[in-house]
């Protein structure tokens, strides 16, 4: 029982990390109808920027305080992500308005290649570390309830808390601020939003910026967990089932989907994996998402698909 709960908790925490990446997909899809494959590359790019500036700032300016250096690096990486968002809107999206979904998808794949190339040219392609002072030692909880207690990774716990905080922050931003209202209006109907004077182009920049910051936070957490390296961009592929399970247009969907996928992945790996040779977690997540899609083709929380002839 203790082991089961431990796996379950581990799955929930990994799930929160997946939702963090999935959130980036959902934000951009909601506001511009673009399925942004480049989210993974953005995570890599942001993490690389963060890791390298955290290394460079003490060397250049002599600021040796780790919190200050990391904070500065975070701000600079955030600014770089703003730049990326602005360039993407200016150079790519603006010219591809009203194109088919497949064309837009391919354009973001092009952006993926580009960002991967630029990121590694600018920041190097070795494995870097992000050290934001996450505690690495596990703690043991519920020792009195179960024999041996449950092993909880403190790092995962903090990461999950950060993810939850970010989601709460984003919901407030979407619900309460005027920019958030404009974003929701654009998501509902591009034309109607434009006709009441919401500047589409600026909204797109804003939403790509927000997605960039989400990517930065995801990159920071994943990076401090796994190290910043090229394989970080494949995190996006792990997060895709989360997005379709939760629904492409739903922020809560990304969270719930992330939790379901995280738990499903861990439990399947532990309980089914040994029977078939292991390593099943990647495709199991997709098959799980597919099973949900067969019942609800628009994902758990997606907008209902209505066909008109």
């Amino acid at each position, binding site marked *: 029982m203790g082991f089961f709960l431990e796996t379950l908790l581990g799955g929930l925490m990994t799930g929160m990390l997946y939702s963090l990446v999935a959130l980036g997909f959902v934000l951009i899809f909601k506001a511009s109808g673009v399925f942004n494959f480049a989210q993974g590359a953005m995570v890599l790019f942001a993490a690389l920027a963060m890791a390298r500036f955290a290394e460079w700032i003490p060397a250049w300016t002599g600021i040796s305080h780790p919190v200050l250096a990391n904070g500065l690096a975070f701000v600079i990486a955030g600014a770089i992500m703003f730049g990326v968002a602005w360039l993407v809107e200016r150079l790519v999206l603006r010219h591809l308005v009203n194109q088919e979904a497949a*064309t837009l998808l*391919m354009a973001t794949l092009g952006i993926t290649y580009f960002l991967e190339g630029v990121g590694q040219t600018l920041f190097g392609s070795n494995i870097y570390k992000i050290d934001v002072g996450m505690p690495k030692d596990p703690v043991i909880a519920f020792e009195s309830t179960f024999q041996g207690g449950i092993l909880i990774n403190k790092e995962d716990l903090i990461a999950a808390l950060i993810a939850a905080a970010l989601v709460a922050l984003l919901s407030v931003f979407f619900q309460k601020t005027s920019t958030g209202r404009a974003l929701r209006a654009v998501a509902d109907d591009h034309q109607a939003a434009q006709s009441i004077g919401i500047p589409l182009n600026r909204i797109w920049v804003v939403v790509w910026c927000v997605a960039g910051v989400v990517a930065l936070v995801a990159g920071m957490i994943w990076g401090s967990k796994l190290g910043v390296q090229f394989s970080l961009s494949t995190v996006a592929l792990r997060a895709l089932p989360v997005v379709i399970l939760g629904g492409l247009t739903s922020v809560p969907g990304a969270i719930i989907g992330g939790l379901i996928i995280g738990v499903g992945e861990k439990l399947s790996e532990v309980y089914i994996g040994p029977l078939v040779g292991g390593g099943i977690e990647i495709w199991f997540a*997709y098959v799980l998402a597919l099973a949900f899609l067969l019942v609800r083709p628009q994902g758990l929380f997606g907008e209902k698909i209505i066909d008109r002839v």
Partner: protein
Amino acid sequence: MLYRENGQFKTSYRSDLQIFPILQDRVALLAILLVAFVVVPAVASDYMFRAILIPFVIMGLAALGVNILVGYCGQISLGSGAFMAVGAYGAYNVFLRIPGMPLVPALLLGGLCATAFGILFGLPSLRVRGLYLAVATLAAQFFADWMFLRIKWFTMDTPSGSVSVSNLQVFGLPIESATAKYLFCLAILAVIALGAKNLVRSAIGREWMAIRDMDVAAAVIGIRPMYAKLSAFAVSSFIIGVAGALWAFVYLGAWEPAAFSVDMSFRLLFMVIIGGLGSIMGSFFGAFFIVVLPIFLNQFLPSAASLVGITISTAGVSHAELMIFGALIVWFLIVEPHGLAKLWSTGKQKLRLWPFPH
């Protein structure tokens, strides 16, 4: 005025039903076949064959398969790499497990394995659509990656799933030299491409296009969505499977599951979109573009850099390649979102009137 159909009257049902109704098209096709089968083998160097021509022919075949599914039936698929892998490993198993199995039937049986796999993973398309389907087809990709790495039966218990074939021959002729490999692939491509060209203008091809344009409306006028979608998956994955088997047997010789990773799926989709959705010709344009571009960049970048006095490391070159590849694709999608095939048809339209502007 060189290219126009004026004066070419159709006087019988036979001539009305021709695949290529315009005389100039037929002449051009024969000329292309002549060049591909006779002139190219006579002049191309060994490097040309191995680096460009053989990959181009095989990738053209795979892109053709993807185009049937994505371009004609409108089902976006990111699992093409998996279909190629199933074709390759299917053909491998048939080829090695059945003693005395000839090469061509082995390839076709590999294609049939891919068909079965494609129909299985095409089933979600009956419920799920658009981008949701695109992501769902990734399930096929990751499942195939895992299957050929972990289930040892498929790879004859070789570690890490890397296998190889040797001693290929067709009707007693060895397929060893680059020219023979090229001609063999080209012959298969020519037969399948002609079949596909014929198929997409038949009743079933029109059903696919109706489903692509609007599946509810198609269902209303009496097209069975299940039959149309699954047949598109079947035909497309068969062609992709044969291409995968060729890629493995003829081009690679020895391969492992990573040869058919998700990157391959993306590349195939690039080919189709850059070449032009819903165009047989476009598949070849796209395949050529995607096959030649990295080679060109690889050759061109170091010399261009040394011209301006910078030496870039090998890693630098590969990063720059990624960058330029990505940027070119985005640029291409912006200037010609309908693909190279659109340029081709615009060109033909212009030729109709040439030398007059109107």
